[in-house]
Every structure is written in C-alpha cells, then in structure tokens.
C-alpha cells in the first residue's frame, strides 16, 4: 500500500514536467478504478460535490465520451461545451469564455484545443484544476497514460521494455506525450515513419529513429501505431495513401514474418487499410479496445487524484 497517495502536480497539462512518481500513482489508481467499472453498478460517489466542465474547442468523440463517462462514474456534475455550438462562433475570446464558465463555479476543467499551450494558459489564470485533453500537436497526457496502463496490463513492469511509435510523429500529440511518459517509466522509445513526418530534432529527446518498419517491429515489445492526421497536413508529406500503406502500414504478412509479434496499440480513430489492415486491428495482437476501456479508468484516476488535493470551498 502506498504511503503517499498525493499527486505533486496540481494540473495535468502534459507529461513532460510530471514527476515519475505521479505517473506511477495515476497508473496504480487506474487499476482500482478499472475494478470499479467492471462492477454491476459502475459508479462511486467520490466526486459528488464537484462540477467538471469539458471544454472541447476541437472535435473529439472518443476522448470526450471517455472523460464524460469517467466524470459520471465518479458522480461529478458535468457540463459540456463544444466550440461548434457556442459563443466562440460569435467571436468571444478564450479568456472570456473560460472566465464565464468559471463564474459558474466549476472545480475541474478538461480542455481540448487546436492550439498548443492552451491548457497552460488556463492553468495560470483560473483557480480550477486543469486537465489537458489534447492541445494542438503538443501533448495529450491522458492518452499516453492509458497507453502505458494498457502496456503494463499486458507486459507487466515497463522498465527496460521497448516501444516503437509508428507513423505521423510530426503532427502527433500522442507521440510526444508517449515519449515523455514512457521514458519516465524506464522504457526505450523509438520512432519510425516517413522521414517527412519525423521531426528533425526528435533524437534530442533520446529517441531512436528506425528507418524500416520491419526492423522496428522486430526490435519492439510494443508498437504504438498513430493515425495519419490528414486534417493537420497542409501539404503532401507522402506521395499517396497507397504508398504510405505499402511502406508503413501494418499487415498480417508483415507480422507473420516476425520472430515475435509486438503488442499493437492505436489511439483511434483507425484509418482501416492505411496504418493497419482490418485483419491486424481485429486480431488478438491488437489491444485497441482494451485501450478504450482503460481510458475511462485512467481518466477516473486523474480526476480523482486532482480533486482530492483541494478542500471543498465554503466549508469551515
């Protein structure tokens, strides 16, 4: 039993500056919450006197649902906000939108935005606990935590394990959060993908670049396969989808040639037939649906641990 069940971080903005102990603590509590969400009644009353605002300035299905479910299973009150149906369209600034929401006495804010650094911007300005649910191409910490949790569930301790991140590293906040988080857990991280989609300075982070996908898969215990983010590509980074699939798509043929097949993860949504074939995505090698299930448990752990840091207001 841990003696210290307290996070050192007040917000979860990214994994770059989160101490390793905090990451371990979140993963450990996620285990407790996974047991909760497999009960007949999947709800505990822990956050019943708290309000959480989900501010999604960028589209999301999976992450928003996952956060909302996590909040409801902790019995928090939830308000949702999405940019497409709000006053942002009328030209309100971010600061104003957020101050308005906080005037409604919100305790935790989950925010996704297409610009990097928005979560940090808020953390400096508002008294609530902030959880970054993805800021531009910067970080997506809860995704990396649920990836790590899923790996740990399948492989045991991650110390000394090898993880390769495959594909569009350049536009991926999942990649960056994975790199920061996994390295703190003692994992060797490598990347592979078209050279146009690998940031030039990536080796500065202590990440190995492997050119061939086959070599990378042979080396790795886990392949975290990223989505090709067409929406963030303002120019052609590779000649065609077919060519991408031929060189960096994961197929059963490729896996069958390996001595040992790594665990396959994908943050979703999958472009079937691009990063992965359907056959691979639906095979026992893939833990993609486990990731989705674990996402709720990990987010419950994050919200619970952040919320436990502050005493209720107006209680003397």
């Amino acid at each position, binding site marked *: *039993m*841990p*003696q*210290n*069940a*307290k996070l050192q971080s007040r917000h979860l903005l990214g994994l770059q500056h989160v101490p390793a102990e905090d990451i371990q603590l979140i993963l450990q*509590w996620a*285990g*407790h919450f996974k*047991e*909760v969400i497999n*009960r*007949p*009644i999947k*709800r*505990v*009353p*822990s956050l019943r*006197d708290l309000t959480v605002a989900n501010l999604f300035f960028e589209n999301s299905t999976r992450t928003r649902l996952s956060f909302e479910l996590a909040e409801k299973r*902790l019995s928090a009150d939830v308000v949702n906000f999405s940019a497409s149906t709000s006053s942002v369209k009328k030209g309100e600034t971010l600061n104003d939108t957020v101050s308005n929401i906080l005037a409604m006495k919100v305790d935790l804010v989950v925010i996704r935005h297409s610009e990097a650094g928005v979560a940090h911007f808020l953390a400096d300005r508002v008294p609530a606990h902030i959880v970054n649910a993805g800021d531009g191409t910067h970080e997506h910490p809860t995704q990396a935590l649920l990836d790590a949790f899923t790996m740990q569930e399948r492989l045991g301790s991650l110390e000394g394990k090898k993880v390769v991140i495959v594909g569009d590293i350049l536009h991926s906040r999942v990649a960056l959060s994975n790199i920061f988080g996994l390295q703190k857990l003692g994992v060797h991280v490598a990347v592979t993908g078209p050279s146009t989609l690998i940031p030039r300075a990536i080796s500065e982070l202590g990440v190995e670049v492997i050119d061939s996908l086959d070599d990378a898969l042979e080396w790795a215990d886990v392949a975290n396969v990223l989505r090709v983010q067409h929406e963030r590509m303002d120019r052609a980074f590779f000649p065609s989808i077919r060519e991408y699939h031929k060189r960096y798509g994961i197929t059963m043929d490729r896996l069958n040639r390996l001595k040992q097949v790594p665990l396959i993860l994908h943050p979703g949504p999958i472009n079937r037939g691009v990063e992965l074939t359907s056959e691979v995505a639906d095979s026992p090698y893939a833990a993609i649906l486990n990731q989705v299930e674990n996402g709720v448990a990990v987010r419950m752990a994050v919200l*619970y*641990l952040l*919320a*436990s*840091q*502050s*005493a*209720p207001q107006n*209680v003397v």
Partner: protein
Amino acid sequence: MPWDRTVLVGLQPRGAKLLKALVAQLEAEFATGPVANGLLDITFYRDDFRRREEPLAASPTEMNVLIEGKRVIIIDDVLYTGRSVRAALDALGDFGRPERVELCVLIDRRFSRELPIQPDYSGRRVDALNHERVRLNWSGSTLESVLLESPEYAPER
C-alpha cells in the same frame, strides 16, 4: 439463516485478517461448509474525501460473490466512529440488495460513535477516549494482543 445463504464481507484493509481467521475457524470447527466471502474497499465511498490532509490509499475490492437476497455480515477490526460502516453500506448497495446486513467487529469502542451504528457481534468492548488509539497486533492470522495506546492528554489550544 443457513451458512449457504450467508456472505462474510471484510472491510479493506484491516478487516481482511479477521475475515480470513473467521472463515478458517467456521469451516474447521463449526462444519459450516465453505463460507462465501469477499473483501470490500470503501475508499471511494468515504464522506471525508477532500476533507483530509492526505487522500487515503485504496486497496483492491474482491467481491466475487453474489449478495443479492443473502445475509451479509460486515467484518471489521475496530468499530470507532461508525463512518466506515456507513460507507460500507453504501458500497455494498452497488453489488446488490442483501436480505439483511449485520455487523461483526473484534473491538467495539462504544463511546466514540458519530453515527447511529451498533455491532451485532463484537469480541471486546473497549472504553477509550478520542485521542487514544486501539491497536491490534497480528502474528499471521492469530491475534496476539490488543493495545490501548494513550498518549499524554494534550487538550487542543
């Protein structure tokens, strides 16, 4: 009520040892047959969340038994304020509706209750003041001693 309709539920973490000892003794000396049992962690149901300095650590819940329609006996080591038992009643509700719920504790600190909760079965009654601590020393599954630790009384200033 017969033992095949009874479930013993130990409260984590400190009720676990007593539960184990009770189950072993019932099966060995009272010929009850296998006694259904489970472990319940009440961390997420406590009413002092965010009101304590340090958040409490959670322990695993292992409820692989059906409690619907059965007699449930909650097992814990020391009954003090009654708040753990209140949380346990809430937590139990998430696993089904027992026909009745009883409470069995080793030590009943009868003068310190903050809620109207009393044990159905208790080993010893201990009359202790609020600043005193009751500590159970286990050696394996045997209870070695019960200590009443009484620090110098220092009234709050």
